[in-house]
């Protein structure tokens, strides 16, 4: 039973809280009520006492008058009968003394109690009563309020007793009532909630499991479809056939995106998505995204560029993969929806401790009434016949990921004027990382700042490049064309976009030509492909200006998606012994074809047991191990291979899990089973070639310097 269903704690805790409110309230109301009652009671006591004393005094006065009437001359107030009459008043506990006074002289004519008189009754209250005698005298009754004080004391004790008893009784009665009236329904409610929660969790688990299984089941045949289409595109094809093969691959990519979005959305909903906290180079990620989308942008004849403010830290801490996913999604949408103009990715400092990544396009914009729901799952702007399609999950996932990163995402758009997504993230610089990009100025110390002419019709990109060059000490004169230049001084360098008209230049002026397609380098200059990579651009600038190129190209962050998909070099796995394991015949054929003419010695196994047998007979350098297989699975086979290696003293093979199970738990399970890396299906040939090439490079480095630690980032690159 969980803590929430403990039958005691909730009701007692609730009751104590209620009591903390109820008791002071009860005391205030009950106390005020009782005080009012006691005041009224006290009033009655005072009135009763006054009536008693008044009546008694008046009756005594009447008796004395009758006594006086019986006298023939002046009344003799010293007669014992007078004292006896006056004595009758002393039976009242409030009366202290009674005296008879001559009002003319103030002389005391008689007093009781006799002997004591009115001694000690100076502070007592007095009731003067005129006695119509001969001569007229005054009867003075002195009384005090001791009985009122006694009544007060009794009332106070009674009040306190009543309050204490009331609180105690009410507390007990309320507790019992509370247990019955609130406690039981509350416990039933908690039990129902607990059951509902358990059912919801079970349903969510089932959903996650279903999604994971579906993901695996879809990825396995997708591996065959995309892989075979990949291989097909390498064969001689007619233009029409090439179009079909390309369409198959693009459709496969689209389907994979959908599957990934659904999986991510499910994980975020279940709260199971965790973000990595590792160093990454933000500039490289932004440039990678621009590079990745450049072919599509080029086909649509739109410009794409990336610019990171030069004053930002070079290395930051965070989840590079997820940030790349967000940027690819948003920038990918921007390229898809933009039909003319450009898409720009810019990064600048935001508020204190924040960076803002802006993805701005010149597309058709998003109608105002659709902007509010653009980040909702399964919602898309537009949706007309010209809509490029999709599940509508991409932006929802992106938004959730940004929120998980502690950031926020904002949209501003005007129909016909384009759209801007602003992603604000916490700026977490990696203080341990050196900042290589900012240390090398373009001018030598003491030398004049070099003058750079920058001609680019795209104002935003021009501003970015100018800011970068200016930050490194260059004087920049920029414009959309030669007519905009405001100086006649000969430049030290010209940076010229291929869409801008060339200015008249001296023959020896170095020039960097920025082109969307492969361009012939100008005389004395260099041609660079757009979108620019900052490190390559700055090195080229520095070289042409005669400055020392700095080591601006530090270790790269992860893979470059699609960025390094150059044609596979021949013999890219020369001399490598490869054992490829997969229970699916299509995938086995695919792996066999992938390694054809790679120079590798390839063995193919159809099961875990066969893989172990083949490895025992002939150890391999690289094992591509499928995980989910009937009988002995990939984890068990890996375990047996590791055991065999240990027993025989063999060098450890590099075992890579190649699986359609790509969730985090599957990666962890692969690591625990003794595997070195993880590649998800569908496995493209380009990715395989890149991975194996890097592996071979690492092996060569290890062989040449055995004491050197293994290259950082190999395993990371595999992920």
């Amino acid at each position: 039973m969980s803590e929430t269903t403990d039958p005691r704690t909730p009701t007692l805790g609730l009751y104590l809280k209620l009591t903390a409110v109820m008791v002071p309230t009860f005391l205030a109301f009950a106390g005020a009520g009782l005080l009012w009652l006691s005041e009224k009671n006290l009033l009655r006591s005072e009135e009763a006492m006054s009536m008693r004393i008044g009546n008694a005094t008046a009756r005594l006065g009447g008796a004395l008058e009758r006594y006086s009437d019986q006298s023939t001359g002046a009344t003799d107030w010293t007669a014992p009968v007078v004292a006896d009459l006056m004595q009758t008043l002393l039976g009242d506990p409030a009366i202290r003394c009674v005296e008879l006074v001559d009002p003319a002289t103030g002389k005391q004519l008689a007093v009781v109690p006799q002997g004591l008189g009115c001694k000690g009754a100076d502070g007592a209250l007095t009731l003067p009563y005129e006695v119509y005698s001969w001569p007229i005298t005054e009867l003075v009754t002195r009384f005090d309020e001791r009985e009122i004080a006694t009544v007060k004391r009794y009332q106070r004790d009674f009040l306190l007793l009543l309050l204490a008893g009331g609180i105690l009784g009410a507390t007990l009665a309320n507790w019992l009532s509370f247990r019955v009236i609130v406690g039981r329904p509350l416990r039933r409610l908690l039990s129902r909630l607990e059951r509902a929660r358990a059912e919801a969790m079970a349903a969510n688990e089932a959903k996650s499991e279903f999604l994971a299984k579906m993901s695996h089941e879809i990825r396995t045949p997708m591996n065959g479809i995309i892989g075979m289409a990949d291989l097909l595109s390498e064969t001689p094809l007619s233009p029409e056939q090439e179009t079909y093969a390309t369409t198959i691959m693009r459709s496969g990519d689209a389907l994979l995106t959908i599957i990934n979005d659904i999986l991510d959305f499910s994980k975020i909903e279940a709260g199971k998505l965790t973000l990595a906290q590792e160093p990454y180079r933000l500039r490289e990620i932004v440039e990678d995204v621009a590079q990745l989308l450049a072919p599509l942008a080029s086909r649509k004849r739109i410009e794409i560029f990336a610019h990171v403010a030069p004053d930002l830290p070079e290395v930051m801490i965070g989840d590079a993969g997820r940030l790349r996913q967000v940027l690819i999604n948003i920038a990918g949408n921007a390229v898809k929806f933009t039909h003319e103009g450009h898409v720009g990715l810019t990064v600048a400092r935001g508020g204190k401790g924040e960076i803002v990544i802006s993805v701005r396009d010149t597309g058709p914009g998003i109608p105002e009434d659709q902007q509010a729901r653009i980040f909702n799952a399964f919602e898309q702007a537009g949706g007309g016949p010209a809509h490029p399609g999709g599940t509508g999950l991409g932006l929802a996932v992106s938004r959730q990921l940004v929120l998980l990163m502690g950031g926020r995402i904002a949209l501003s758009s005007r129909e016909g004027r384009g759209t801007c997504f602003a992603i604000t993230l916490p700026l977490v610089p990696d203080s341990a990382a050196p900042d290589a990009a900012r240390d090398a100025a373009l001018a030598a110390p003491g030398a004049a700042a070099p003058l750079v002419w920058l001609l680019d019709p795209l104002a935003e990109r021009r501003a970015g490049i100018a800011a970068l060059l200016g930050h490194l000490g260059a004087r920049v004169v920029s414009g959309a064309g030669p007519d905009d230049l405001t100086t006649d001084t000969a430049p030290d360098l010209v940076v010229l976009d291929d869409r801008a008209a060339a200015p008249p230049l001296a023959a020896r002026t170095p020039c960097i030509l920025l082109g969307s397609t492969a361009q012939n380098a100008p005389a004395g200059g260099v041609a660079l492909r757009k979108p620019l990579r900052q490190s390559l651009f700055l090195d080229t600038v520095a070289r042409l200006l005669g400055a020392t190129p700095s080591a601006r190209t530090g270790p790269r962050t992860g893979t470059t998606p699609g960025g390094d998909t150059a044609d596979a070099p021949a013999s890219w796995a020369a001399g490598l012994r490869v054992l490829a394991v997969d229970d699916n015949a299509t995938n086995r054929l695919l792996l066999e074809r992938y390694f054809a003419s790679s120079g590798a010695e390839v063995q193919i196994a159809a099961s875990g047991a066969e893989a172990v047998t083949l490895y025992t007979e002939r150890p391999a350098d690289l094992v591509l191990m499928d995980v989910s297989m009937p009988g002995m699975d990939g984890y068990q086979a890996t375990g047996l291979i590791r055991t065999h290696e240990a027993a025989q003293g063999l060098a450890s093979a590099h075992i890579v899990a190649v699986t359609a199970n790509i969730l985090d738990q599957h990666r962890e399970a692969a690591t625990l089973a003794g595997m070195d890396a993880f590649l998800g299906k569908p496995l493209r040939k380009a990715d395989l070639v890149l991975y194996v090439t890097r592996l071979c490079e690492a092996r060569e480095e290890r062989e040449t310097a055995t004491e050197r630690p293994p290259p950082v980032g190999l395993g990371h690159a595999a992920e």
Partner: protein
Amino acid sequence: MIRSAVFTLLTLGLLSGAGAEAQSLNELRTQLQAMLQRSLDRSMLGGALPHVDLKTGIVTRYYPTENHEIILKMDDIYVMCATLVTEDGREAPVDYYIAQSDGRFGIIRMEIDNRAPLHALMEAGRATRLE
């Protein structure tokens, strides 16, 4: 906390003020009660208060049974009550309207078995308890 302290101080102040006022009130009450008793004593004929009904001409003899301790105040007029009983045992209230002059109290009006005027004054808030 501050509110509680202020409330307590106000309450104590009111209570202490009420106590100081009660001293003089008790003296006043005893004087009024004594005056009423004297008045009753002096009004009785043969131990009874004869009363003539001016509409019917019937004379009724009322005997005092008890004075009431509650005293009402209406501006400068005090109202005191007593219960009378007829020979046939019927109870009738009597209300005395008392005024003060030169330190002496005197009955200025008496209503026997006619409570309606006093009730009207009480309901109108004119006659309130002396406290």
